[in-house]
């Protein structure tokens, strides 16, 4: 247990309370929380910050941290006596959007936050807080009234170009307000939250099976990863171990999800650069992976496959043999397409130096996933906090480029190669089946769960009561983190015509953010 976290705790002068081998807690007083967390976050990564309603005090805040090279998580908690707390944002920029969410959802004010505006509730009167309001107050939330937004950039020749929330093609709803002098994007004013479905609120009081089904519907193209993080949190909270066959199946399906998601992303990138044949080729690959998922599990997006304590469906031997041959073919085709794309000047020219996300900036935002890795943030929970069967396979976490759209493309392509390798290893070393149903104990508990979704690190926190019903479910998918620096990346010397390329290269989901 004498890992990086312990050294960090010693340096900051705090006592860790190990509740599990890889989950340490620190209970802070209200005075100490801001200072302690800021000092920790200066040398570790702030992965989440959220509030929980508690019966005794107005609320509890929890900060989730991790240190490079240590498989353990650190959770710093504080019980608030008032409806306010000292903001971390002046010291830890990554805390900014978490605190804004806490303010709009719970009504807890981050004192000293430089810009505590709402992220999801738009122009609603600010006495409504969906995570705190009781009974009818929630049901009777006022309609969102779209008010004209005042441009923050003014000057001769500067005009505003609105895009969304209804987009041009079959895309997700989000609003982008560009300020431009003609061609260049001077500033992007981003508005999300159009798809806010109040998932976390809805899950309160639900059974594990119901809440699991909800977590799988948090987002479509990362449905399995979100379900997996939820399942892991539940299993850890209840102290349930799963069979190695189940673990293998989970890793297998998680990688298949990465395949279809990344094929979709690269296909969209090709589409936005006018390479219709390339887009069609990636479309073929994506559809074939989706069909394979359907054939293996009965659902193209792998929903309804997970169960707390194991899997509802395990791929049988003939299916695995069939998959192996398909993987070989897909891998070869993906490799050829990647080489062709790299040799296509019109493609690379559009991506090169487009929407640069400087590594320093990425570091400040504690980014995750391919977007973070393209800006030199070396994080991947499959390697850093192994789960399912990732301990049994060898793989690299690709780190290339310096933060532009081309770097992100290279990361997606390199991750595909790694996924094919992981899938091959899993299928070669499939454990003997044991279908003994695990008995799920019924008691209270809480834990963190995680998974590396196609978009990056996905964290779920789950608190259960004695009847195994959800007291608090906090979902922090990858997009919650990675939307944060998005507007900045768009504004750094890009043109309006670059915008579709930028959007495709980030591959962010409004549904994942809004929840």
């Amino acid at each position, binding site marked *: 247990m004498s890992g990086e976290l312990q050294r960090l705790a010693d340096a900051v002068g705090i006592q860790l309370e190990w509740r599990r081998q890889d989950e340490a807690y620190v209970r802070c007083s209200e005075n100490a929380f801001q200072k302690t967390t800021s000092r920790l976050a200066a040398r570790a990564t702030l992965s989440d910050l959220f509030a929980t309603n508690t019966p005794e005090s107005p609320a509890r805040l929890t900060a989730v941290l991790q240190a490079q090279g240590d498989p353990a998580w650190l959770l710093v908690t504080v019980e608030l006596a008032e409806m306010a707390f000292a903001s971390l944002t002046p010291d830890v920029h990554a805390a900014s959007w978490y605190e804004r969410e806490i303010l709009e959802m719970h009504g807890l004010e981050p004192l000293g936050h430089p810009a505590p505006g709402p992220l*999801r509730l*738009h122009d609603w009167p600010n006495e409504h807080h*969906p995570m705190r309001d009781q009974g009818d107050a*929630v049901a009777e*939330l006022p309609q*969102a009234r*779209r008010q004209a937004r005042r441009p923050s950039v003014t000057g001769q020749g500067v005009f505003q170009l609105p895009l969304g*929330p*209804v*987009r*041009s*093609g*079959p*895309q*997700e*709803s989000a609003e982008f307000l560009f300020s431009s002098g003609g061609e260049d994007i001077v500033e992007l004013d981003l508005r999300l*939250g*159009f*798809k*806010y*479905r*109040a*998932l976390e*609120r*809805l899950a309160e009081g639900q059974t594990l*099976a119901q809440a699991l*089904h*909800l977590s799988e*519907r948090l*987002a*479509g*193209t990362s*449905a399995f990863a979100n379900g997996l993080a939820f399942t892991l949190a539940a299993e850890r909270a209840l102290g349930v171990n799963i069979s190695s066959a189940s673990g293998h199946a989970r890793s297998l399906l998680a990688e298949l999800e990465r395949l279809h998601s990344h094929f*979709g992303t690269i296909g969209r990138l090709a589409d936005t650069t006018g390479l219709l*044949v*390339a887009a*069609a*080729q990636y*479309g*073929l690959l*994506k*559809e074939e992976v*989706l*069909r*394979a*998922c*359907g*054939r293996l599990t*009965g*659902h*193209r*997006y792998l*929903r*309804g496959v997970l169960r707390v304590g194991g899997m*509802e469906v395990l791929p049988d031997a003939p299916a695995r043999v069939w998959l192996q041959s398909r993987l070989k073919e897909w891998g070869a085709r993906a490799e050829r397409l990647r080489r*062709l794309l790299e040799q*296509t000047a*019109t493609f690379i020219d559009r991506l090169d130096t487009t929407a640069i996300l400087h590594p320093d900036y990425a570091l400040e935002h504690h980014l995750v996933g391919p977007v973070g890795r393209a800006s030199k943030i070396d994080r991947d929970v499959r390697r850093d906090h192994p789960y399912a069967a990732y301990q049994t396979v060898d793989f690299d976490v690709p780190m290339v480029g310096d933060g532009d759209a081309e770097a992100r493309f290279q990361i997606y392509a390199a991750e595909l190669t790694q996924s094919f390798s992981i899938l091959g290893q899993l299928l070669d070393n499939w454990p003997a089946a044991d279908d003994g149903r695990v008995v799920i104990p019924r008691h209270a508990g809480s834990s963190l769960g995680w998974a590396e979704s196609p978009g990056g690190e996905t964290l779920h926190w789950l608190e259960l009561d004695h009847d195994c019903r959800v007291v608090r479910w906090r979902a922090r998918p990858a997009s919650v983190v990675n939307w944060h620096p998005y507007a900045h990346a768009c504004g750094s010397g890009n043109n309006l015509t670059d915008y579709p390329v930028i959007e495709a290269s980030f591959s962010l*989901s409004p*549904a994942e953010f809004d929840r």
Partner: protein
Amino acid sequence: MSRWIAKGLRSGVHTTRFPSAAATATAEEGAPSTVQVRWQGLTPAVALAASSLCPTAALSTSGAELAGELRFDAGACVLCGRCTREFPSAFTAVSDPRVAVQSRDHLRATFRWNEEKELAPVALQAEVAALERATSQLFRHSLHIRHVDAGSCNGCESELQMLSSPYVDLHRLGLFFTPTPRHADALLVTGVVTTNMKEALLDTYAAMPSPKLVIAAGACAISCGSFQGSPMSKGPLDQLLPVDAYIPGCPPTPQALLHGLLLAVGRARERYRAGEEELDGA
């Protein structure tokens, strides 16, 4: 660039023969489109057990083992697979993608049992008149679709994007997505209608010229699906707009979406009816 042209030509034609050879295309997508109740295999005990497994309002019961009823709503089914796995004799997965219907009632069925535990379907009060709408005939040859995401999970959008992939290729059937509501003949809506999207959705509908069609795609748009009871859900869609076609699924597969679009313009017929054996006639 020439290498891409060569690549495209070399890979040949992959497009499905759906809908013209629907039967052979049925199993292509590898996943079921919805669920059907086989009431002959249903007992009161199974009905009660299955409805307790169901995560949405697709299966709900009232009463008890002695006298009660099971209400089935395929429009709320999110294909979690729990009922079909546990009780295969009473609930079966439908692999035919032609499951879209024109009336919300066609996705609903009720089964009632008495004190003797004798179970039988309850007939619909009145057969909904065949929806041969004059408007739908106008768009037989070409249809321009405006899609609005009113609060989905991105699953439906992912499948809508697959409509343009070579496997489905909706353009071959004269179907097109259009960026502007002014050019649109049909409004295709996905997702529960959230508080934040309601206004944008109604504005989009108002901006479309008449006559116009509205299509609800996916369990969320049809019945709020998994998000029933969410304080942010203002749907289902048919309480806000007149809906011409319902496409069940979570998400509906590309071929199911295609069938729904063709059904809305009168180029396909209804095949699915909740609680009934397959309808015949193509």
